[in-house]
Every structure is written in C-alpha cells, then in structure tokens.
C-alpha cells in the first residue's frame, strides 16, 4: 500500500458524466430469470478512458447497452442510469420517452459495436448512412458532412472514397474506422465501444487503439472501452474496471489494477493472459469456468474458483472495499489477496528455455514443403467464357520443413495465407505448384481430385479447427464422435475396448467424470470442453502432425493457457508435431517457447521470417516482425508510446501485390531497391538459434545500404500502381 497519487482524489461530482446506480439487466428464460448485469453501481468520469475488462459472458456488453438504455429485447433494465450533461440538469436515461431517447442516443452518447463488419446497411452507400443520421437528428447536412470528412481523414481514410463506397467494398479495418467516424458525427460527449476491435487483425487493432487517444483529445470525448483483451487497453485506459459474473470485481486506476490488483480474480486473470514478457512458468489458467447467468453463486460469485474463499464468501456478497484512492474492490479478503497471491508481472530478462529448434531440425523432415504455391480464383476457362481471369496467390513459393516432435507456429495478418499454407501442409488444400512430401513421399502422388490417395498419410496429418462448436457434429453424442476415428483406424478394438479408451482419454484431458460426458451432445459442453473433444478426436487416430488452426482463439482468456498446456502435454505423450496458426503473437510465443518450436511470420503469401520464439520475440530482424511485435500490447501502463512502425495502416490488395519486397509499401526502412528486387531468405542463425529473415537489411554488404530511401514519399502512392512481378521468396516454379 504505497502512497499513490492520482488526480482522482481531486475529482468532484461535476466530473461525472454517467452514473449507474444498482443497474441490473434481466432476461426471462425458460430456465428462470437470467441476470446478465447484477446491481452495478459505478461512475464514469468526464474526459477519461475507462477500460472495462471481462471474459465472454461476464455481462460487459450489457453494461455498454445499459448506458444508452439500449438493451436488446426482451431484456429489462432496472435501476438508475443518470447522464450528466456539461450544462443543465442530470438526465435519467431510463426514464426518457421514446422520442427523447431517440435524440439522446448518438447526440450525447453514441456507441461502436462489436460487429463493425455488419453495422452498415449493405445496400446503401456509406454517405447515406451519414446523411440519414444527420437528418434524423435535424443537423445541418452540409456542415455534418464536412465534419464527417474531417473525422475520416483523422482516421487515415480517404474521405471521398469512403463516402462513395458501399460497405462491402471496404476492408474490415476501414469499416471499423468509418463506424467510429459515424458514431462521432453528431459530436457526442461519451463514446461507448463494445469490443470494437475484436474482429480485426492485431496490427489494425493496435493502429485503431493508438488513433483513439488523438480522437479523444481532439473531440473532448469520454470513452468507455469494453474488451476481453486486457493488454489491449492496458496503456490506453485511465481507469480499469474488471467485470466478473455480471458484477464489478474491481475498479481502479490502470496502474493499480495492473501492478497491485486486489481482487483474486484480477490477479488470476493477469496470470492467465498470454503476453510477451512474463516468464512462462508464471502463466497459468484459472481453474473452473464462469458461472451460468441463471445460477449465479450465492455470496461472492467468484468463490467457487477462488483459492481464498471461506464461509463468509459463500454467504455474504462482498461490497466495495476501499483499497486505496479511487480503487474499489469487491472481495472480503483483498488484503490477504495482495499478500498471498503472486502475479506474474515481473519482467524477466531470460526465460531459461532451451531453444531446441536446431536440434529438432536435424534428421529427416516429417513433412517437407518445397516451393509450395497456391492460387485461388479460376483463370479464364475458355469456352464461352469471356471473363477476365482474376487470381489471388495465397501462398507464393514457400519452403518449410517440419520435423518429428516439432512445433511451428505461423503468425500473420488475416489474408496473409497462413491458413492456406498450413492446410496445404496437411493435405487439405491442393497446391497449384511445388511439392509436399511426407517422410520423403509426395503426398499428392496418385491422388485424384482433392483426396489423398494414401490413407496412411491421411491418418498421419490431422486438423483441429478454430471453432470447436462448428467442428463437432451437433447431432452426435460425444461417444459417437470419438468412436468414429477408432472404428476407422483401430478396427481390431471391440465396443468395450473403444469405450475404455475414450473414457481414458476424456479423463486424461481433464474432463471428469468421463462417464457423465460420454453421452452428452456437443451443445451440452462448454467451449473449452468442446475444444478438448475435438483435440482428442484428432489424437485418437494417432497422427504425426496436427494442424491447430487458431485453436485457442475462440476460448476465454482464462482458459487459453490451460488449453495450450494441454496441447503441449499431448504432443509430448503422443509424440506428434504441431503446426499452429495464430494471429496473436502472445499465444504463438507461449506455444513456441514452451516447446522449443519455431515461429514463422507470413506476409502476403510469403514467409518473411522464421526462427525460435526467443529470437522472433526479442530480436526480430524483419521490419514486419517488428511491426507485429509493436502491435502486441503488453500488460504495462507506462509503455513507451511508440510511433507506429508502419507507413500505412491498410494492407495492399492481395490480387495485385507490390513488386520487389512485398512489405516495401508499408516498411519504414524501405529503400528504392526494395521496390524492384525480391529479398531471399538469409540465415541469421548462430550456433543455438535458427533464424532466417527475408530482408536486405540482414546482409552487411548489400546495395540496399546505398539505395535511396523511399519512405518520404506518400505512403499510399505505391500501393496498387506497381504491376505484379510474381516475386516469391524462392519462387522458380510456375
């Protein structure tokens, strides 16, 4: 309890912009009343950024909607929501009439949704969205459009182009920024953002978050930023609020929450959040799962998962305890929590894992990709087809070896071809060029259509999908789902043996008692359990390589580390190799560092850098890897506010990739030679670490160093004007 100084102590009531008093949101359900926001009392101060953190199903979206009294039907909001305008009397939002509410929303408080992708009417141009909003609120349309254009350019968008586009013509990141502009067009005082970046790429998320600060200053905004991703808001927010089971667990200044959290849940959440700097052994999942909204535990709702829980916690709902200036915590034992529960926040310089990437790289590869190329979109097919051929090269000449018991994590923005490459590696995608060999045999040999000829190879290469709910047949019981691979590949087993084997596996992955689960349907399982079933299903055929396509992205933050640990353990037990796909460098680092695997960074169909986790995270060579590193937020408040290491936010059109080094249009280090020549992979490996980077800067002596810099030019000038020169890293086969 150090003396902590904050301007919070000087706050008066005048500074409050919205206050919630005993606000609840309820949904009537067949099983009973579902309380998705449980008597929340809090205040939002004027001109602050309040970060609200919660896992899925913690009530954070309801908290957002409640501030505008915009809870979707049939939800019912009770309690008080009071808005304090800059001048004039406080407004009780819940008592407003329909017409008053219509005016209040968007003019005073506006909202940016999670689903930016679908927040626009697909048949109306963007401009109409602005115009109809302005006219619905009787604003001057010409002045409003001028403001809109200004907002759009502040968000690094071309205003004319945006306004004249239809929603489907914009990328996800553009739509999200246009939506932010649309939400600010009526000059509201408070902006509520509900997971505004959840559907976006890492780089785009980070870029948007860094724009928010400027926007906030310029337009005198108060922002409530709601997210499941704690690191994302860590350096942005002035205050952080942690939601658990539809109530606030803790609320306080960001520094306090991150450095000295008082609630056991916050401490556990910090430990469970994969990040780049914390030592691996201190990351651990939170046991158990979030409670059901119909059945919130008595007393403190966290007590079933809390190590400090005692009888008091089970019966008495902990009121807010004052844990310092402006810092409230809902825990009876917060002092004990600070003393007894560690948080893995200390940054350590060395993690102590041995990098075994090179050791593993000896011997014959398990799966070897050479010069693989995958092109989508049909070329002109001749007969009666006068159409132009339009093709996208998703993977452009990549060579990669995966060894026995190896782990490779592919990271990159969406559309960089990482999923296509990985699917090609496990024989789920037919390559249009190059070869894939499994233990020295071409896997497509003798194959007809898109099915592998050799059943043995098919067995050896398996996949675990991103969305466990969709990859399990919802009409089959767990038993049936898991019996299928056994029947197919272990026909010698009889019914009892199969059952025993399945029960054993369920037990092994921590689903117990397994007898209870074997007859359930997938929808009766939680997300984490479903993913475990999917994982077992592919493990049961005893594969040599498993492709895990964003296998932990759909899970709650608190479960991710647990799932990754399980995968690593299974890898050890079953002696398989893993090919992970992740858009999140923190997850990639966790997996790769813990297993001594490699991280491969992809950009626009090319592999730009590959190396051990440590090298990629701590000593990235390629400027794009550095950008990814920058985009991965850490659990710190005082992060150095670095400038974005990219010259343009938006990714070039993949149907017409830039010439030379594909990253040169965004690279801060680009020089003239980058636009014309394609860099080859350079081995940067010393004795221990294998690291290869495709950048001229890796050469000590290259004409790059004499070349003129092109970074002064307008960043977008080059994009799309260069012709496609088909420049693969090692592309020779066409």
């Amino acid at each position, binding site marked *: 309890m150090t003396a902590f100084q904050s301007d919070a102590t000087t706050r008066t009531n005048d500074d409050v912009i919205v206050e919630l008093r005993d606000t609840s949101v309820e949904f009537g359900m067949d099983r009973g009343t579902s309380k998705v926001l449980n008597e929340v009392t809090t205040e939002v101060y004027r001109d602050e950024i309040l970060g609200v953190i919660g896992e899925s199903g913690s009530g954070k979206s309801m908290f957002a909607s409640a501030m*505008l009294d*915009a809870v*979707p039907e049939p939800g019912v909001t009770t309690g008080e929501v009071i808005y304090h305008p800059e001048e004039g009397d406080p407004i009780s939002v819940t008592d407003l009439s329909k017409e008053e509410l*219509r*005016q209040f*929303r*968007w*003019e005073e408080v*506006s*909202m940016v*949704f999670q*689903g930016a992708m*679908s*927040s*626009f*009417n*697909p*048949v*109306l*141009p963007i401009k109409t969205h602005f115009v*109809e*909003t302005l006219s*619905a*609120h009787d604003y001057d349309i010409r002045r409003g459009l001028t403001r809109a254009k200004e907002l759009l350019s502040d968000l690094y968008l071309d205003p004319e182009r945006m306004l004249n586009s*239809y929603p*489907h013509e914009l990328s996800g990141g553009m739509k999200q920024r246009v*939506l932010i502009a*649309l939400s600010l067009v009526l000059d509201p005082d408070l902006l509520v953002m509900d997971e505004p970046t959840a559907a976006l790429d890492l780089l785009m998320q980070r870029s948007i978050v860094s724009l928010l600060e400027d926007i906030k200053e310029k337009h005198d905004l108060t922002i409530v930023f709601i997210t499941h991703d704690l690191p994302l808001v860590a350096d942005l927010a002035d205050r952080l609020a942690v939601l658990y089971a539809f109530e606030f667990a803790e609320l306080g200044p960001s520094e306090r929450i991150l450095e000295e959290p008082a609630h056991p849940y916050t401490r556990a959440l910090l430990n469970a959040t994969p990040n780049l700097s914390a030592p691996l052994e201190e990351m651990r999942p939170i046991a158990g799962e979030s409670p059901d909204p119909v059945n919130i535990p008595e007393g403190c709702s966290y007590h079933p998962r809390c190590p400090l829980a005692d009888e008091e916690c089970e019966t008495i709902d902990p009121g807010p305890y004052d844990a310092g200036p402006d810092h409230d915590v809902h825990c009876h034992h917060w002092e004990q929590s600070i003393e007894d529960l560690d948080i893995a926040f200390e940054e350590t310089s060395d993690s102590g894992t041995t990098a075994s990437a090179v050791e593993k790289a000896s011997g014959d590869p398990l799966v070897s990709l050479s010069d693989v190329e995958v092109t989508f979109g049909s070329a002109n097919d001749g007969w*009666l*087809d*006068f*159409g*132009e051929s*339009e093709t996208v090269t998703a993977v452009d000449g990549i060579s990669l070896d995966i060894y026995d018991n190896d782990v490779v994590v592919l990271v990159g923005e969406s559309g960089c071809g990482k999923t296509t490459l990985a699917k090609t590696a496990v024989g789920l995608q037919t390559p249009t060029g190059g070869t894939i060999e499994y233990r020295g045999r071409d896997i497509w040999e003798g194959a007809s259509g898109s099915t592998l000829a050799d059943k043995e190879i098919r067995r050896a290469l398996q996949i675990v999908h991103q969305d466990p709910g969709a990859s399990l047949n919802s009409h089959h019981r767990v038993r049936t789902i898991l019996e299928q691979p056994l029947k197919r590949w272990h026909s010698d087993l009889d019914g009892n043996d199969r059952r025993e084997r399945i029960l054993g596996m369920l037990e092994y992955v921590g689903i117990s008692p397994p007898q209870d689960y074997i007859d359930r349907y997938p929808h009766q399982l939680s997300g984490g359990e479903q993913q475990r079933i999917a994982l077992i299903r592919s493990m049961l055929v005893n594969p040599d390589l498993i492709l895990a396509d964003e296998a932990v992205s759909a899970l709650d933050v608190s479960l991710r580390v647990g799932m990754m640990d399980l995968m690593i353990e299974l890898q050890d037990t079953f002696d398989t190799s893993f090919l992970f796909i992740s858009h999140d460098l923190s997850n990639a680092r966790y997996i790769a560092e813990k297993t001594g695997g490699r991280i491969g960074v992809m950009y626009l169909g090319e592999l730009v850098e590959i190396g051990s986790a440590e090298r990629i995270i701590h000593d990235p060579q390629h400027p794009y890897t550095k950008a990814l590193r920058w985009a991965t937020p850490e659990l710190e408040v005082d992060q150095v506010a670095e400038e974005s290491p990219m010259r343009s936010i938006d990714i070039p059109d993949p149907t017409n990739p830039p010439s030379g080094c594909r990253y040169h249009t965004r690279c801060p280090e680009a020089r003239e030679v980058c636009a014309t020549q394609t860099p080859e992979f350079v081995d940067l490996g010393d004795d221990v670490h294998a690291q290869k980077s495709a950048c001229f800067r890796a050469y000590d002596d290259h004409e790059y160093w004499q070349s003129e810099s092109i970074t002064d030019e307008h960043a977008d000038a080059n994009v799309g004007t260069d012709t496609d020169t088909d420049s693969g890293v090692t592309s020779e086969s066409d």
Partner: protein
Amino acid sequence: MNWKIRRFGQAIFTVWAVMTLAFFLTRMMPGNPVDAFVARVGPELDNPQEAYELAEIYMNINPQDPIHVAYVDYMASMLQGDMGMSMSQNDSVAAIMAEAIPWTLFVMSWAIFIGFAVGISIGALMAYWEGSKFDVALTGYATIITSIPFYVLALVLLITFAYRLNWFPTSGRRPEGVEAGFNIPFILGIIHHAVLPVFSMFVASGVASLTMRGNSIRVLGEDYLRVARLRGLPDRTIAVQYIARNAILPMYTGLMIAIGSMFGGAVVLEEIFTYRGMGYYMIQAVRARDYPLMMGAFTVITIAVVIALLIADLTYGKIDPRAGNEDHDAF
C-alpha cells in the same frame, strides 16, 4: 462489361441448344415423327411424294434431305420466326403462339404479381409478429397450402365457385357475344373469366410469404438494424430502407424465375379452366401428336425462361450493389 457479353453469349447458346435438341428429337425420336407424318398423310394424297413437301411445310424438316442440310434449313426457318404449321389447329404455329401468348401473360402475370405482393406483405407482418397466433396460423396455412399442388385447389375452386355457386364461368377466356375491344363489358368479361385461374394460383402460393418471413426475421437480427435504431433513424426509413429492401432483395431472382417459367406453369391451369392460352394449346398438341405446335411451344417457353433469367442477372447488380461489378450470377 465483359461479363455481360459472356452472360449474353450463354443465353444465346442455351436457346440454340434447345432448338437443336428440338430438331434432333423430332428427327430421331423413336417412331420418328417426321416419318410417321409422311406415313400417315402419304396414303391420303394423290401423289405420295407430296407428303415430303408437306412435311417440310409443317415441320420445317424435309426427311429426304441429308440430316445436316435438314438441320440448316430448320434453323434458318426458326430464326425467321417460322415454326412450321400446326397439324391439328390448321394454322401456322407462329400465329397460334402470337394469339395465345397475351392471354397466358395476362393470367399468369396477375397471378405472380398478386402472389408476390400479398406474400411479401403477409410475410413482413408474420416476421413483425413472430411467434404470435397470427404468425403461427399463417405459417401453418402457408406450409400446408404450398405442399398441395395448385391444380388440386384449382379443381376445388372450379367446382365450388363455378359449378355450384355459378359465380364465375366454368371455362373460356372471353365473354360470349361481346364485341372485342376497349369497351367496359369486354374488359370486365375478361377479368371475370380470369378471376378463378388467378385466384387458384394465388391461394396456392405460400412460398413468397414464407420466404419473406424468413428473410425479414434474418434482417431483424442484423447488427446494422440495431445500429440504425441507435442512430435514431425514423421508423419508416428503417422499415423501408433497412428491413424491406434487404429482405426482398433475395426474392428478386425467385420472381424472375417465376416470370420466366410462367408459360410452363400455365399448362395444367389452362387445361383445367379450358383457358385458351399457351398451355392449353400445348396439351392439345400433345394429345394430337401435333409435333410442330409442341416444339414451337417448347421453344417459346425456353426463350422466355432464358430472357427472364438474363434480365434478372443483368439487373440484379443495379438493385444490389454487392453484386454490381462482380462476377456473380444472381442465382
């Protein structure tokens, strides 16, 4: 642009393929219709050789020519709009078609128009009151009625309203003894005759309302609708520009296909009501083994479907920007 040319090329190809098929069917079908015709007509003529000339007049096919010459002749006359002579109606096929098509168009376009208009309105209301008694009752009705063939309903309507109650004529397409032209008794008479056929098609069409209901419910759950409400847009804008437009869009292709295939759909209906349109003549042709008329009718139906789909494809981009400049067919 390229895409439009390609689409147009495909349409012409389809028409050509159907005409060619018609030729080879007539020529090669078991019991070869041309030879059958010659065999039937020949003995009645003084000069049996004339039968071949007659065959060429009726069917545009001279069985004595080598097949490629016959094919070229046939296609040439088809392109000139000469579809041969009807053997049973004693008139040129083109003339019969020209006379029959407007009647079919009249009945079927009203049936389709009313079916869609009412279906869309009811479907929208059903979606708006989703789960209410109104919705449940109409969904049930629409499901049952869609699974009953329309001609069963047509028969029931005919028996009830024409034979039992005498409210409507039992057959025919125009009033007797009234001078044809733009006079009120004639127009009323036509409508009077058309009511039962139109109504029986309309009553049986529950699909439009069910589709509209489903589409609207989907749109009602869209994020952009929620954002629009929060933005404070007037209810009317939301209903028209946001819900209706997005819900009706996917039905446009369905409407075009319905228009294209209406001649085909008219066959049974016109037979039941003895309504002398395309479909009526087609059945007559089949009964009388009147191949020229049959082939002419098939060709017209094909061309109608192809044109309707072509229009649907070319205009879809205009009403749905997402399909605008992309290489997508509307169906």
